[in-house]
């Protein structure tokens, strides 16, 4: 009988130790104050911020370094105005179609297709429907309208201003224009 108790004790002990291992909990830290940053880190929780949330929108009226103000508003009239008047600040030496293609394939190709015909993976899998070809006559996109739509989004398309910088948006615009001419051939 005595041995039975011993066996029981050992199984309980082993069980107790192994049950502490849990993947949904982080491991122990040794000297945590060497691990935790003193300064504020991205995505940290600090009392000075509203809701203790470090990630916030930029202050209103400020422009991030390397960007410039975009004067067109997110309205139908300004869309038409941008379509007619807005031109790329990049000259022919600054346009980098290779980089434009890399960015296009990441951000646009998933819906619009890598050829711009509206046949991206999400369209083929029927997750998002009705994606137009860049050559669509009814839309007749221009440099300005492409940039405007990347900036604000349109209809079901969202804004890509948070994923692409100003210069990157113009590079993608140049690449979309190239796809459009290829499609119209």
């Amino acid at each position: 009988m005595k041995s039975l108790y011993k066996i029981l004790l050992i199984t309980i002990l082993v069980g107790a130790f192994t049950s502490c291992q849990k993947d949904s909990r982080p491991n122990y830290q040794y000297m945590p104050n060497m691990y935790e940053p003193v300064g504020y880190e991205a995505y940290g929780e600090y009392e000075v911020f509203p809701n203790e949330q470090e990630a916030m929108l930029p202050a209103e009226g400020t422009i991030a370094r390397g960007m410039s103000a975009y004067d067109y508003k997110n309205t139908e009239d300004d869309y038409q105005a941008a379509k007619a008047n807005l031109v790329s600040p990049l000259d022919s030496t600054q346009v980098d179609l290779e980089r434009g293609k890399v960015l296009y394939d990441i951000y646009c190709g998933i819906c619009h297709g890598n050829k711009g015909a509206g046949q991206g993976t999400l369209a083929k899998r029927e997750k998002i429907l009705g994606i137009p070809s860049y050559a669509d006559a009814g839309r007749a996109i221009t440099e300005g309208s492409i940039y405007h739509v990347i900036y604000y989004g349109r209809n079901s398309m969202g804004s890509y201003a948070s994923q692409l910088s100003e210069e990157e948006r113009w590079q993608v615009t140049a690449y979309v224009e190239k796809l459009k001419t290829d499609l119209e051939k």
Partner: protein
Amino acid sequence: MKKSYQSLEDNSDHTMKQVINRNLSSRFLLLGLIALLSFSSHTIFAQDGDPVAGKSLFNSQCAACHKLDKKMTGPALRNVEARLAEDEGLDRQWLYSWIRNSAGMIKAGDAYANKIYNEYNKTAMTAFPQLSDADIDNILAYTAQPKEEPKNTGLPPIDGGPKGETSSFSNKIILGALALLFALLAAGLFLVNKTLRRFADEKGIAVASDDREERTPIWKAFVQNQFLVLMSAIFLLLASAYFAYGWMMQVDVNQGYQPIQPIHFSHKIHAGDNKIDCKYCHSSARVSKHSGIPSLNICMNCHKSIAEYNGEVTPEYSKEFYDGEIQKLYKAAGWNDAEQQYSGTPSAVKWVRIHNLPDFAYFNHSQHVTVAGVECQTCHGPVEEMEIVYQHAPLTMGWCINCHRETNVDLKDNAYYTKIHEELSKKYGVNELTAAQMGGLECGKCHY
């Protein structure tokens, strides 16, 4: 496709003109015209298009802004023609001109055109001059189809689940069965032993183990043998040192850490099934130290259009479960799906951070992702197969150093490296340089 409807198109063009004439002229003329046109299979009263062709047109042209049963950028279109005729008294002619040039109608002051334009926040409908009457007839035929009732498939098939989950499930069953078997065996042995002893007692046979007092107990014998004591002490110390070292080395190594997130986001569905690039959501990995957690507007880029999950399901994760998670996203983003606008109060989603380097180690994503062109999977593992993300790599210093020693730097066509490459390859006498040879092991690169 367009060609096959060419004849139809001509016909309907023709008949449409007759319709106008009919409206304007007398019934007598109409009868005559019917007689004239009777050779055509396509009569004025049967302008029903082909719903199959209409579906493909609808999906390619209209579905960006319209759904059949749900408001999207534009109104729901199920039975649009009948509803327009009933509520507004507008006929197909009106729809033709609206679809081809809605802006023109609004400018011309058409009452209903202006009403719908204002109702939808002055969102102009794209003009579709390329759609012929026949095309529009087909689309209208598709929208006029009755709604399909969702098929009641009952329980999802169990074998549809991903192999990892089902196999871990069956592993648990096998382990449980084994444990039960052993328990039964032990109990059986115990009972056999007991009965045998009882038999022995009854028959008066002394069991051999009863002469214990005559032997020296084993622990006494052990203590008396000093060599054995020394050896086992050394063995015990070494073993405990080994385990203590092992335990201490895994302190703050979070390999396999798999926290539960506030919204069940499946990387398997997004990055695996739908092949969305990692950098689509984690766009700052290209350009900054951090690989950012996407803000909810990036989720809404797609989920504005995708309100329910229609992929494969497992017993553990049903369609209802995934739909519920999308609703959680809508709630956090303040998106009202029925009204198709942001009307709620947005709230932050408190994602749980998985990969976390200590403060004394510096790591920069852009340097690895953009400059070196390292695949995300090299460090993060097969994320596109993870239903719930876990930490794949140990993220220890040894692990970093190993990769820097083994990875050749891509120097081709990179003017920035030309001179360094020349000098370093002379110094080390090699053609390919590893990250370590370029200074990737210097302390100050990561610790400062």
